[in-house]
């Protein structure tokens, strides 16, 4: 039996698109027929749950009972992949908690696949955040995500400075989330459905919807590019080496 995989999506700053990235990950694994569950740490009301209500549970990651709910069930849950959307400001403390409960040690021993999607923010503080996170993340698969979905203009950092931080994390890989047309993004928000459902013109309960063909096209094109980034870092192989399928066929 394949070992369970945990993907932590976080940043120490708010509004950098953590939940958007978590949503694309859930869609991606869904397209690869990889059973996935998600935890939304924006207690009491989670944004991720709004888009993926059937897969998502809202938890307080700082509470021991909820930590048990997530980590004690890794081996027994049907879902092979667990995506955790970590609330703004909680990434470092969550990683610290994972160290304390021995989770990172298990990951190091190869009992669990562990990946961190660190969503970068627009300011230099984010670079310091990388250094801070690097200290605790150890041997996890570490992905630095430059999220342009909201047309953030933060990558005017000095490349030398950025690289010096980037290189502190052994084996870190970079993922770029491209910009999505604002109106298309907004319409998916309004529809409150997964990106894949929007592309497939489906409502929240799988019923036929009537979204704009143009906006669906924008989302499909964008999602294809995002998944291309995930393909590039061999994400499916990381969490589920045996599964092979054509992700774009599913998207279309």
């Amino acid at each position: 039996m394949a070992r369970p995989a945990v993907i932590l999506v976080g940043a120490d700053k708010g509004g950098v698109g953590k939940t958007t990235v978590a949503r694309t990950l859930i869609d991606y694994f869904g397209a690869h027929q990889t059973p996935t569950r998600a935890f939304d740490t924006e207690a009491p009301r989670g944004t991720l749950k709004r888009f993926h209500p059937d897969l998502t549970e809202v938890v307080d990651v700082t509470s021991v009972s909820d930590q048990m709910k997530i980590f004690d069930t890794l081996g027994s849950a049907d879902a092979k992949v667990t995506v955790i959307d970590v609330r703004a400001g909680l990434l470092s403390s969550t990683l610290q908690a994972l160290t304390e409960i021995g989770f990172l040690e298990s990951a190091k021993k190869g009992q669990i696949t562990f990946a961190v999607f660190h969503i970068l923010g627009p300011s230099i503080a984010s670079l310091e955040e990388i250094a801070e996170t690097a200290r605790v993340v150890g041997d996890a698969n570490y992905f630095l995500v430059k999220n342009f979905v909201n047309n953030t203009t933060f990558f005017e950092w000095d490349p030398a400075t950025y690289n010096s931080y980037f290189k502190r994390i052994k084996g870190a890989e970079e993922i770029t989330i491209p910009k999505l047309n604002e109106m298309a993004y907004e319409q998916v928000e309004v529809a409150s459905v997964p990106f894949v459902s929007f592309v497939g013109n489906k409502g929240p309960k799988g019923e036929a919807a009537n979204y704009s063909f143009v906006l669906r096209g924008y989302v499909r094109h964008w999602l294809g590019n995002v998944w291309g980034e995930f393909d590039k870092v061999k994400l499916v192989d990381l969490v589920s080496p045996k599964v092979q399928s054509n992700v774009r066929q599913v998207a279309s």
Partner: protein
Amino acid sequence: MSFRSSITIVASPRPRVGKTLVARLLTDFHSSENRAAIAFDLNAGERTLAQFLPGQTVAASVRDVNGQMALFDRLVTGDDAAKIIDLGHDSYELFFTLAHQIGFVEEARQRSIAVAILFAVTPDQTSVSAYRSLRERFGRAMLVPLHNELLGSAQHRDKYPANGSGAVTVRLPALAPGLRKLIDTPPFSFANSSMANATGVPLDAHIELQRWLRRIYLEFRELDLRLLLADLRSSIRFGS
């Protein structure tokens, strides 16, 4: 026929190659075949098409998302009308980039709408490259070279290979200069055959115009037939 309606895009990256005239002819052709027809004018500024077909022309734009939605969402609406796009050279690249990105041809086919691109051929390298690019990007649309003999008799066939088996080219025959002036003066309509008489055109000129029109309509009928044939072949191949 297995497809319910068609979209014909009259295109060229070059200005003044007769796109609007062909769009007018196509719209009137469909009307003459008792089909509902809507023309979309994607030319910035002049809006010539609307002067000739005021009741059937929709001014369109792909410059912003609202315009893109107004155009493409309407194009794929299942209203059974034949749709003709007069694609101005200044919107050419943006239109096809977007159409490719959003999967326009695939969506249309899913809704049983056949798509044909009528490409006005000229000998310049820009057009030759643009044609090649369309062949690569829109394999499931029928790409049809349009030879406009009003511009001269050169055919450039070697530069514009027809698309796939059962391919077709469309020829727009030459027309006497006097008659060209007549048809290029609004509100001339090909659909209204009495128009020529009404504007005081001599009978022999009227007859020549009708003959010219019949030749073009024959080309369009052939195009319709090839579209149907391509659709049937595709249905058999893809089992759809």
